[in-house]
């Protein structure tokens, strides 16, 4: 059974079809790429999947249950974690707090216990801190735990975004341009890391990326989006040879027109 499935998914912004008739199918354990020229509607797809936008038409099934119409926090609690293309960290909070907040949905004590400082509070906080530090260690950020997120260099902010998304304990992870702004070496390391966390956390990953070497290197299947429609999908080899993809990317002049 597919972990995530969309049927006829469409989103219009007052007449402009940002995504139209999208049929995605992602199986458990897969690593799927979603590519396309600027403005093809990739991030809109993410926003639809995570409930930021309500679809105009169509439905989204996650683990066999319909999830469109649910608010973002419920979708996250069902097990879809995400990162943002334009980094959205909790800038004035420490790196540790960023991850702890993502872990909040699994908190083991209630508000009153927290205020009264009952034993469960200390136990819960200790657990939470250890788990958060573990996530930070994976991303090589544990020595930055006390720093404010906004003071981190760009590459580390990107990694913190992934660490934070992982702390929500997702079964499906959506990565929106995780390698944006990274140099080739950093991109390569990130690729290794993505492969590793997939094994370690038994994740299914859907990633948007412009860096073709990253997409072709790690993804098993790729969907290509242009003007909100899937123009091709298949293995990296198939995609590389697909004439429509080549046209969309290199075709008639620059294909930076379209929707944002």
């Amino acid at each position: 059974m597919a972990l995530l499935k969309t049927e006829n998914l469409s989103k219009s912004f007052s007449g402009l079809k940002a995504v139209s008739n999208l049929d995605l199918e992602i199986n458990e354990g897969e690593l799927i790429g979603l590519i396309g020229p600027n403005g093809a509607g990739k991030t809109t797809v993410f926003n639809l999947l995570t409930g930021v936008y309500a679809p105009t038409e169509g439905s989204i099934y996650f683990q066999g249950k319909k999830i469109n119409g649910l608010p973002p926090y419920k979708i996250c609690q069902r097990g879809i974690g995400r990162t943002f293309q334009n980094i959205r960290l909790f800038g004035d909070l420490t790196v540790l707090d960023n991850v702890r907040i993502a872990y909040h949905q699994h908190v083991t004590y209630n508000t009153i216990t927290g205020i009264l400082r009952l034993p469960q509070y200390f136990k819960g906080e200790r657990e939470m801190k250890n788990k958060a530090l573990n996530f930070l260690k994976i991303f090589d950020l544990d020595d930055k735990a006390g720093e404010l997120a906004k003071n981190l260099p760009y590459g580390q902010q990107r990694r913190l975004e992934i660490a934070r998304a992982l702390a929500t304990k997702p079964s499906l992870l959506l990565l929106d341009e995780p390698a944006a702004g990274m140099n080739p070496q950093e991109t390569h390391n990130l690729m290794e890391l993505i492969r590793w966390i997939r094994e370690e956390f038994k994740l299914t990953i859907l990633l948007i990326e412009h860096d073709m070497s990253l997409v072709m290197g790690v993804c098993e299947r790729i969907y290509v989006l242009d003007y909100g429609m899937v123009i091709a999908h298949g293995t990296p080899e198939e995609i590389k040879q697909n004439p429509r993809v080549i046209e969309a990317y290199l075709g008639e002049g620059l294909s930076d027109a379209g929707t944002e």
Partner: protein
Amino acid sequence: MSNMEKYRNQLINRKNIIVLFLLLAVYGVVQGLFNIGVLGNFYMMTLILVCIYIILAVSQNLITGFTGQLAIGHAGFMAIGAYMSAFVTMKLEGHLVAGLIFGALMAALAGIMVGIPTLRLRGDYLAIATLGLGEIVRIFFLNFNYMGGATGFQVSKTINWTWAFWLMVLSVVVITNFINSSHGRACISVRENEIAAEAMGINTTKYKVLAFTIGAMFAGLAGGIYANYMYFIQPGTFSFLKSFEILVMVVLGGLGSITGSILGAGIMTIGSALLADYPEMRMVIIAVLLILIMVFRPNGIMGNKEFKLNFLDLKKKGEENGTT
């Protein structure tokens, strides 16, 4: 047994003992000076007002500084607390504690009812809506003839320094503990980035309403203390100017800093008491002070930092827990 011991050590560490000791010292010194007559009634009143304003400022800070919701209706919740506690202590002749609890709970209830619809609004829209709601409360009591209406309502004085001081401490500890728990961090994440908070599984509406309700509850408690101290309450006291005054204290001290709010409440209340002899200059001086602070420290006196006792070289590391 070792678990129990560990728990005891987490509560009774050196930092908390020092804080408790300092609080006892402040309490004792003021009470002592008052008993031997060094501290006159006027200064006592000022200090009790400082306690009341600390509760108001810290609870406003929870809503505005920590959760990031610009709500300007605190005087309304204070009025509800004041009138409802006076209703219990005067009309029902109940105990002061019953009055304070009833006042705080009614304010909290009003907070929930107001919060659920208005917290959908953002920024200045929320400010306008809550401002209006504060005024509605005032006008309601203005026409509430059962409790005096516009002429005001007499309340016998049962609050003294002991009550005011320790209730203030209780309020600050509860709000500080809340902020330093996972639920408090969820509130702060709403301030930091609402979209990201939602995407991380935080029910932002719930935490906005929760912070708003806790804030309203403590504003109600402050109102109850005020009513049972002041002999006399009237709706005019709880106008939107009072809400602004509280907001100014919070901004002065620093949004997102508990110790800043305590400082802000202290400076503003003592400042206006010291300037009581020059009523015509008072507002001018306070305004100039505010302008200077906003020029030189735009984030308030404390920014979003807390005043900590770390310089005492407290050996206990780890948990940044507990009382300020």
